[in-house]
């Protein structure tokens, strides 16, 4: 190839230009593809961000009119928006705690012990990830109805913990399975009682798996709509509020909340990366 190119270059100078362009493309094609994908992923967020500074004429925030910070200076200006946001955050927090604690324990049991129901539990844990959400939502609602349970905060929380569990179990189990069992033996050999061994060695080593399970749970619970909608009764979470308002007109405040969530998430990732880098350097 190289030889071929040099002879061609020697022949004509005119052929050089397209050739050079091709070579440039060949060298940068991966970067270009990467940037395109990144743009594809990030563009919706940018649109949301830009429209949070819009001042729409009607009730719908679909067309750019003019720049304004009205929505940013009064994010709770729409009735019920901040209430539903608070409820969603509350549910996400409790669902994360519940699913992480239960899921971690299940993961340890599945990774460490051989018991009769082990394969059965493994399948059950996988089900919420594989099953269509609507089906799960409807059957849960049927269950609650038949048991005569009042729909509301608690039914939503129970439903969220259920589907978050599988993600926590999967994340933690992978981490525990790859852990060298000799580390725990070494801890015991160095005078750590079983409780100390768990707190000082097992848990810190499993921590990244637990943390990623918890983060996933929070994100999944916060933006769940289908299951929540079936099991909420008259309670309104943030995704349900957005859905409801979309029928009647979308307030700019929704974009403000969306942008804020996006920025918080980005900030978390950046801080995490920096902390990791500094730890590696020292």
């Amino acid at each position: 190839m190289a030889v071929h190119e040099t002879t061609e270059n020697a022949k004509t100078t005119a052929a050089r230009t397209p050739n050079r362009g091709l070579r440039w493309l060949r060298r940068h094609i991966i970067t270009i593809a990467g940037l395109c994908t990144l743009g594809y992923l990030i563009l919706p967020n940018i649109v949301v961000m830009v429209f949070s500074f819009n001042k729409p004429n009607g009730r719908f925030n679909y067309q750019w009119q003019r720049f304004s910070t009205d929505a940013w200076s009064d994010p709770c200006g729409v009735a019920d928006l901040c209430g539903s946001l608070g409820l969603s955050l509350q549910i996400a927090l409790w669902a994360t705690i519940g699913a992480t604690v239960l899921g971690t324990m299940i993961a340890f049991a599945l990774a460490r012990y051989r018991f009769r129901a082990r394969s059965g539990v493994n399948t059950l844990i996988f089900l919420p990830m594989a099953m269509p959400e609507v089906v799960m939502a409807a059957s849960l609602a049927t269950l609650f109805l038949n048991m005569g349970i009042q729909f509301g905060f608690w039914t939503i929380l129970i439903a969220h913990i259920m589907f978050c569990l599988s993600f926590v179990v999967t994340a933690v189990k992978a981490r525990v399975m790859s852990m060298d069992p000799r580390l725990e033996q070494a801890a015991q050999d160095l005078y750590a009682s079983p409780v100390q061994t768990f707190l000082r060695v097992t848990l810190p080593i499993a921590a990244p798996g637990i943390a990623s399970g918890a983060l996933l749970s929070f994100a999944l619970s916060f933006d769940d709509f289908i299951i929540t909608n079936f099991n909420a009764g008259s309670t309104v979470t943030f995704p349900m509020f957005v859905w409801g308002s979309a029928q009647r007109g979308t307030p700019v405040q929704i974009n403000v909340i969306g942008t804020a969530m996006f920025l918080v998430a980005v900030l978390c990732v950046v801080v995490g990366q920096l902390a990791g880098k500094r730890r590696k350097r020292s």
Partner: protein
Amino acid sequence: MTKTATPQSSGGDVRLQGISKTYGSFTAVHPLDLTVPAGSFFALLGASGCGKTTTLRMIAGLEEPTTGTVELSGQDVTVLPPYKRQVNTVFQNYALFPHLDIYENVAFGLRRRGIKSVKKQVEEMLDLVQLGPMARRKPQQLSGGQQQRVAVARALINHPQVLLLDEPLGALDLKLRRQMQLELKRIQTEVGITFVHVTHDQEEAMTMADTVAVMNGGRVEQLGAPADLYENPATTFVANFLGTSNLIEAEVVEAGGEELLLKAGDAKLRLPAGRCSASARTGEKVLAGVRPEKVALKHTDDAGAITEGHNRLPGRIKDASFIGVSTQYVIEVPGLGELAVYEQNIERDGRLVPGAEIVLHWNPAHTFGLDAAQDIQAGADLDEEAA
């Protein structure tokens, strides 16, 4: 049992009585009695799967013996969990805590025993293993040899009565292994703690240990000082696993005196009666053994110059390989098979090339006798595998 060790505490002895371990129908360790004297460097040597690591783990408390008792310094610890035993282990592949830095790895044992001011002790220990500047690094940032030293420091800082080492040098390359062997021996002499070292490397065991127990198939084949085991192997396994041995099937033709007279093929061999571990009455079969480096070669033309009274066997050089310090010959002896001879390269006889007719000879005092009822090849191929 109190876990407060004084810094001056020296080693304790280990006494295993009738200890065994079975997994289902598989017996990993047959009932075993073993005493490791306080302050000694003791090696358990054997090929993989011989039960040496299981024995070590039973001393540490990581494995519960099926039968028998473990005593440390006269105290029965058989039912004590590992964290209540005053022993520490250097694990194979070290098992350093990846989430803690070197300093905290070394301080781990002290902190678990509730000792608050660990700084001085940790720094001293890191100096002992020459890793002071590495204190704040994570284990994965260290080389294999450095990780190995951290593992030793992490165990030794607790001043255990006994330090258990499970193939601690297995993951290192040859040169580093040699260096660490001397290092470990130095540390052991310095701190005076009893070391029990598990290894499959016979050279490592002989270099470092005062006493070596050779294990095979869940049993101790022989126990003794390295030189003793090498010079007077009691079984064909020990003879072949520790170095190389020439074993010759022979028949006792004359017994009763200080020397036995044997007949091997057409040749007559002499064997000191005291060096024959088998019963040797006239007419019985024994295995006469001799180490390759104890045997000398003479060209057939010079056979007259061989010292009177030496054992002799005629043969032909089949192969010769020059390896620097010595030349290793394979000699074909008619009727007896192949024998190995290692000659130091001091005065090389140019006629000693493959095909040459020669006479092997050695001082009868270097001959040892073994029971002929054993597998003559036992342990021979294991050694090659391990090396």
